């Protein structure tokens, strides 16, 4: 844990131990209990039970429409931007139910950063993109902002490529670089967890490789949950893998086990490419 955290955040575990609610989950970031989700009448997530561990990369795989992106977006409640979403059950983040009435989504999303499928930088300069998060959380000091920008860009392994063009529009760089800018932007709010929704699906193989290496690097400091269509990617970069099918978790285990020795026939069929 670095001492240079500038945002006034609770350190990773200390804040919640006092009330004793963390006892059962020494190193779980998220505990999902009996989670159900409906889009109108469509039952998209069914009785999800999933524990996500600290400082690991958790991959979520499954065919299109299986609910994997929906589950990811439920973890920071972005799914609620879709009208007519209903949920039941609990998701405990660091021991606290994120659906509690007094848990503000803004507070949750400050702790849980997100990287989207398509690179989505703001039509602003690279610097302003990274400084956006710290600024909305009240940091105005130019020196501190400069430090956050450099630290975040270094963290996303793109500092050397853009350090001389921080004032240029973020759209002037390539798609792969844009995606790393988006990762840097997520790092700038100094999150605890990073959610990644198919972050490489719009990128070329070399940019994909860079992002995969970056994910390996980032898991030392962050817990990462990544949704991917690419099973090789899941096998390469994740510690645990959850296989979703029709809104249910079919199997969840260490990635090695899922890919070498799956328990469920459907998991085996999917990872060996027989459907999906």
């Amino acid at each position, binding site marked *: 844990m670095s001492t240079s955290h500038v945002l006034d955040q609770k350190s990773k575990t200390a804040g919640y131990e006092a009330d004793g609610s963390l006892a059962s989950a020494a190193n779980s970031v998220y505990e999902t209990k009996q989670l159900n989700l409906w889009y109108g009448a469509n039952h998209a997530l069914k009785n999800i039970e999933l524990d996500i561990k600290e400082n690991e990369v958790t991959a979520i795989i499954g065919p299109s429409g299986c609910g994997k992106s929906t589950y990811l977006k439920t973890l*920071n409640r*972005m799914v609620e*931007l879709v*009208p007519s979403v209903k949920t039941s059950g609990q998701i405990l983040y660091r021991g606290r139910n994120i659906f509690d009435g007094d848990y503000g*989504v*803004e*507070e*949750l*999303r*400050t702790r849980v*950063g*997100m990287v*989207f499928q*398509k690179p*989505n*930088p*703001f*039509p602003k300069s690279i610097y302003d993109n990274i400084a*956006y*998060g710290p600024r*909305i*959380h009240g940091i105005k000091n130019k020196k501190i902002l400069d430090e956050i920008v450099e630290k975040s860009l270094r963290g996303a392994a793109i500092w050397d490529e853009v350090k001389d063009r921080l004032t240029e529009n973020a*759209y002037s760089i390539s798609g792969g670089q844009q995606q790393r800018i*988006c990762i840097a*932007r*997520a790092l700038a*709010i100094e999150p605890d967890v990073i959610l990644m929704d198919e972050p490489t699906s719009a990128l070329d193989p070399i940019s994909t490789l860079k992002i995969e290496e970056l994910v390996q690097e980032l898991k030392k400091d962050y817990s990462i949950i990544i949704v991917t269509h690419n099973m090789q990617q899941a096998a390469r970069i994740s510690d645990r893998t959850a296989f979703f099918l029709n809104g249910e978790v079919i199997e969840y285990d260490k990635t090695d086990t899922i890919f070498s020795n799956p328990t469920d026939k459907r998991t085996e069929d999917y990872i060996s490419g027989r459907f999906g």
Partner: protein
Amino acid sequence: MRYIEHDTVVRRMNGRMVVNTIFKSLFLLATLAALMALVILMYQIVTQGISHLSFSFLTNFASRFPDQAGIKAALIGSIWLMAVVAPTSIILGVGSALYLEEYAKQNRITTFIRMNISNLAGVPSIVFGLLGLTIFVRALALGNSILAAGFTMSLLILPVIIVASQEAIRSVPGELRDASYGMGATKWQTITKIILPAAIPGILTGSILALSRAIGETAPLIVIGVPVIIQFLPAGVMDTFTALPMQIYDWSSRPQPEFQQVAAAGIIVLMVVLLLMNSVAVIIRNKFEKRY
């Protein structure tokens, strides 16, 4: 067996090209017809009015004598009117659009409200004049002041500004909202820092076009009872005034043929004002335009 025979395609090609040319010519004719009407109008007005156009025309008040008649009171009155209409209608219009697009739940009531705003944009201006007469002139006792006329004009162009702003706000890509909300930004922060900067060219273009409609409207002013012959300038928003289209309407309905020339000169002034406003809209659009 092949379904598309190359020979048949070639044989039918001539017919297809003829139809293509016919429609191209028809649309060209339509454009030319509109253009011709405009050119004739401009020619008539300019030839009639140019002789009367001078600096003293801009600095003289209205007069019984055509050669002394000036447009000062109407020009200044129209500027006063815009000074009330622009802030009122833009603040209310953009506020409503933001509420409907960003805050309101998408349900039957908001759909109903949206549909009615679009319908309001098509209500004749004289109806808004009657509304203004009832509410602002009589009920709120503002009389035939700049404020009463300004509020009435604001109501008239409000639907246009709301619809244009809604379109501009809707065209901001959803991914930008996601990115902002995903970092824990509140709705208001997302609106001020992401949505409005991206939507401002569309909003301002729509608003200025709506304002140029307001500056040319006559019917609501007649209903409110805005006077024509005024020998003083308003000192505040509670004073009465006259506006460019009112003055032009008055001159063109006078029997002396000389006044027709005065009216034409007035129309030239009004059109220059309109042209200036539209140019501002174009400049703003080009300056703020951003790519995604």
